[in-house]
């Protein structure tokens, strides 16, 4: 019984500590990051200036030419901006979450 009581106190204590952590706003999180917003056709130089050199540079896929490349970053942060959109499903009003913007970030 005593052990059970101690376990309960420990769990409540740990729970209290996590409760004390205030959730952060996007602005607070981004103040510690360098970010760039994805736009189709944007210059690669803009990306590399913010994100630094890529971690992995795969060879081009067979059947393509050397100008079509992919560059991979490991352990970077992606921010998806989400909004609700109204749709019709079988004549009923329903809602979907859709991605409206993407940002790629690294820690400052």
């Amino acid at each position: 019984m005593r052990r059970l009581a101690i376990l309960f106190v420990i769990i409540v204590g740990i729970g209290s500590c996590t409760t004390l952590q205030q959730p952060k706003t996007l602005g607070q999180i981004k103040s510690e990051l360098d970010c760039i917003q994805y736009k189709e056709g944007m210059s690669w130089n803009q990306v590399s200036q913010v994100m630094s050199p890529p971690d992995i540079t795969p060879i081009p896929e067979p059947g393509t030419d050397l100008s079509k490349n992919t560059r991979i970053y490991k352990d970077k942060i992606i921010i998806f901006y989400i909004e609700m959109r109204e749709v019709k499903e079988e004549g009923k009003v329903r809602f979907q979450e859709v991605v409206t913007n993407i940002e790629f970030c690294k820690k400052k």
Partner: protein
Amino acid sequence: MLTLDGLIRKAEGKLNIYKDFRLQGDKNITEKLTICISDTHLLERGPNDDFLDGKPAYEDRFLDFLDFLLNLRQEEGERLEIVQLGDMFDLWQAKGNTNLIVGAYPNIIGLIDKIKTIYVVGNHDIDLVRWYKDEGETFGRRWRHYSKAEGKLRAMYEHGFQADFANNQDSLLGAIGREVTRVVGMMEYIYPDIDVILGSTWDSVVRAFGKFNVFTPVRDPQGFSPHEYSKFYVDLLERYNRGDTHDQLGPEEVDLSLVVIGHTHMARLVKMPKNEKIYHLMDCGSWVNGGREIGVISGKDMAIFQWG
């Protein structure tokens, strides 16, 4: 204004009076058909999500009810008022605040917004008014709502945790209550029904204490009360009617006779006579663990319904 019987007819058999909870006040309480929904406790569809409770049919049933409300809003317009009485989100147990709950239930959140709901804050979603307290951002949540009839406030709507010593969020006991809920939520990952079992046990203890009036046998010799918060709310309504409040409401503006709450998850409609006046308490139940109750007021009439 649509009557209760008109509403029942429109629902085509899906709305039924719960038990025999239908009463009439001595004066008009509302000038709009008012529908109250309480305690959905939406989470992220995990084992601790008591709204879903592992049964997708519960979500379908609630969506069916929201579809009905959307049609009703289009037909009735401003003659309809819909009040969400708090604990719409269960932020005490949420992994990613409201963010991931919205992702889990976009249809429900979207429809509740679209039917122009008035939101009252509960103890499980009180963080919504705390996150940006300094900036005044409350995400449309209010502490309390009122309805008027004949130029006077006649009904008060709040969540009900204010009357619950173990859940009043301004007290130490309330903070302990929150932690206990979090621990029980963790235990639900092992045994999903543990919250129901512990809740019933707690209710039995409270009932036994209430029946025998352990603490105040001289002041309240009768013991039995049809609702554990009736004394708190009769006192509150009387105080408001006297103008004895901090809300700058004079007695000439106030003639409250009904309080509408949630919180207990046990739907009831109770008559509370005091000092030659009849007060009523409407407890709108919940939508968790299979609950499907709503409170409805139209003019003098009030009732608790079950959907589906």
